[in-house]
């Protein structure tokens, strides 16, 4: 490609990271940051050990436990570790705790203030930076694209490849622009926006593409909101999402522990500013969405593409043109226990989960607390928990008194981790019960066997807790 031709943000980051192009159309691409957690790394470390290989750049690698960790107290009053009842979880966590120092990797421990969900920790520590290539053995790595990093999830063999070589063999992706024109309406959040995008594109709509989110509604979002949007790029099939870094991004990162300092900082900002997509650059595909069309949204089925405004009705399977989608919708409605034509705002919920790498940052907690202040959860809501994304988010929320708001409303205030986003730790939704959840996946069994998940924003989750049913938060504010 002619170096003076207009280029997209993705093309600029890609070009800056190619170690070498190969004859077969793949490229060896340098990886700037590697985040490691306990679930997808043990087999990679084992392979290194068996082959006598080392970690090439332990200084570019950061390990933190999150998926398996119970969200209850991790140390007792005497400071001793509280044993983890699930022995397999305990073994997996112990493996990371041992592997990190034995390979010289920075490790944040289970009871450290900085511990949290890997995708909350990376940006918060300034480890994730604009223009960087970032990988992690977790599909929601797309999250870091909210800072303007090219970030994507990888499998365990690729984790091993990055540990050993600090590179990956990749094929250049196609580019897609998803442009959100105009401003979001009051009561509509970043989560509603990304749920709406997923509904428009479908669960496979972004396959093979890296999506750049552009337009006024994206520019208007805070960094937390941008991380929420990019986090769910994978739910519409894109390997990665990108949002161009700007002054908000730089203000968010400045002074964070691993962010550049002094002269390096100025140099970094100058380079980051140069990354924005050039005027006249071409995307392979462009989708335009009008922000004014987006309402507070909720999922009704078992794919994140099954999205409707809260004011909508449960769809009839026959309403879909595609026969395989009709069959999928029929199976979804049976699993979800819903009837076609039923108003979504009539669906009663028994559980509320506020947390996950999508929605567990300070703004998310503030938005939920704003709805809950002076209110309490409905009698029909049996279990409501708030799980901050990191120990630092938890501390800040406590300084702002948000924990008191949640506890007064009948929520449990937990320790950071992935929690009820996935059924790997003790936080699960009972079979047959519904959960208004701020997480990212409503797959069959995701929150526990037989659990029924409705994906919503933090404010909508809080509203559902108050009324005991899926609720348009605009009625409560």
């Amino acid at each position, binding site marked *: 490609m002619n170096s003076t031709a207009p280029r997209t943000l993705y093309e600029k980051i890609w070009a*800056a990271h190619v*170690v070498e192009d*190969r004859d*077969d*159309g793949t490229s*060896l691409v*340098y990886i*700037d*940051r590697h985040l490691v957690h306990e*679930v*997808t790394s043990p*087999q990679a470390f*084992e*392979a290194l050990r068996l*082959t006598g*290989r080392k970690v090439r750049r332990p*200084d570019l690698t950061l390990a933190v436990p999150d*998926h398996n960790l119970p969200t209850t107290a991790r140390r007792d009053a005497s400071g001793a570790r509280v044993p983890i009842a*699930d022995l397999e979880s305990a*073994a*997996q966590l112990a493996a990371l705790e041992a592997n990190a120092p034995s390979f010289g990797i920075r490790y944040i421990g289970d009871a450290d203030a900085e511990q949290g969900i890997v995708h909350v920790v990376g940006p918060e520590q300034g480890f994730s*930076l604009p*223009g*960087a290539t970032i990988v992690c*053995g*977790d*599909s929601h790595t797309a999250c870091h694209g909210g800072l303007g990093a090219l970030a994507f*999830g*990888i*499998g*365990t*063999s*690729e984790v*091993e490849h990055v540990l050993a*070589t*600090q590179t990956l*063999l990749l*094929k250049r992706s196609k580019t897609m622009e998803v442009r959100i024109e105009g401003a979001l309406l009051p009561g509509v959040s970043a989560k509603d926006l990304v749920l709406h995008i997923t509904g428009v594109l479908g*669960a*496979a709509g972004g*396959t093979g593409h890296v999506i750049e989110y552009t337009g006024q509604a994206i520019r208007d979002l805070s960094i937390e909101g941008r991380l929420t949007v990019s986090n769910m790029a994978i739910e519409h*099939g894109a390997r990665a999402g990108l949002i161009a870094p700007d002054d908000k991004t730089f203000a968010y990162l400045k002074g964070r522990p*691993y*962010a*550049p300092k002094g002269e*390096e*900082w100025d*140099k*970094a900002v100058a380079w980051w500013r140069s990354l924005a997509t050039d005027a006249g650059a071409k995307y392979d595909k462009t989708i335009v969405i009008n922000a004014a069309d987006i309402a507070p949204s909720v999922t009704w089925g078992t*794919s994140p593409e099954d999205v409707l405004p809260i004011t909508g009705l449960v769809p009839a399977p026959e309403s879909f043109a595609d026969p*395989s*989608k009709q069959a999928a919708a029929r199976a979804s409605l049976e699993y979800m226990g819903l009837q076609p034509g039923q108003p979504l705002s009539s669906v009663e919920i028994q559980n509320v989960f506020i947390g996950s790498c999508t929605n567990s940052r300070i703004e998310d907690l503030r938005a939920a607390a704003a709805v809950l202040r002076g209110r309490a959860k409905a009698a029909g809501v049996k279990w409501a928990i708030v799980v901050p994304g990191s120990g630092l988010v938890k501390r800040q929320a406590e300084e702002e008194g948000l924990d008191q708001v949640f506890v007064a409303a009948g929520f449990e205030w937990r320790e950071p981790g992935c929690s009820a986003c*996935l*059924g*790997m730790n003790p936080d699960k939704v009972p079979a047959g019960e519904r959960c208004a959840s701020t997480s990212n*996946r409503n797959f*069959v*069994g*995701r929150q526990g*066997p037989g659990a029924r998940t409705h994906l919503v924003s933090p404010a909508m989750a809080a509203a559902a807790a108050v009324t005991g049913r899926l609720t348009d938060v605009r009625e409560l504010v």
Partner: protein
Amino acid sequence: MEPVSTISGRAIPFGRKNIDTDVIISAEWLKTISRDGLGKGAFAVLRQDPDNLFDSAEFKGSPILIAGDNFGCGSSREHAAWAILDLGIKAVIAPSFSDIFSGNAFKNGIVTVVLPQEAIDRLMDVAQTDAVHIDLEAQTVTTPFQDRYSFEIDAFRKHCLLNGLDEVGLTMARGDAISAYEAKASAERPFLVHPA
């Protein structure tokens, strides 16, 4: 990794679209620190049905799976590939795959074959009674009834699969090129190559 050239045998006519990796292997199975033994948990939600294809006398242990659009979407868990492999499946044929799943499958020697929906529909029919044959060298899927479908595969992946090559070892042999990149990037963008 074992070299792969042809895969022949009964193909499980599964056909469902948007099968996510939570369905292929649910989170409770991700606590293992080994790659083995995950077949027991593969498709566990579907296998609660006593009439499921995976445990039927006819299809149990079949080397090929025929699936619908967007197979392997969702989580990046490579456990999904390990679980499928442990069931005895060595190739998956579908109209499309999630990017992460097809990468994970490849790294474990599973061939992912992309064919148009019409071809899938035909193979689903054939699979009810007869075997399906995949030839990686020729890039074809054939049946005993003269059906012949060509598929595309990335040249590097094909080369690695046919020769059973270890990608980590191949890249480590490019260590000098990686060092040269690091030296250049250190000068241009030290803030990326050397965290504060």
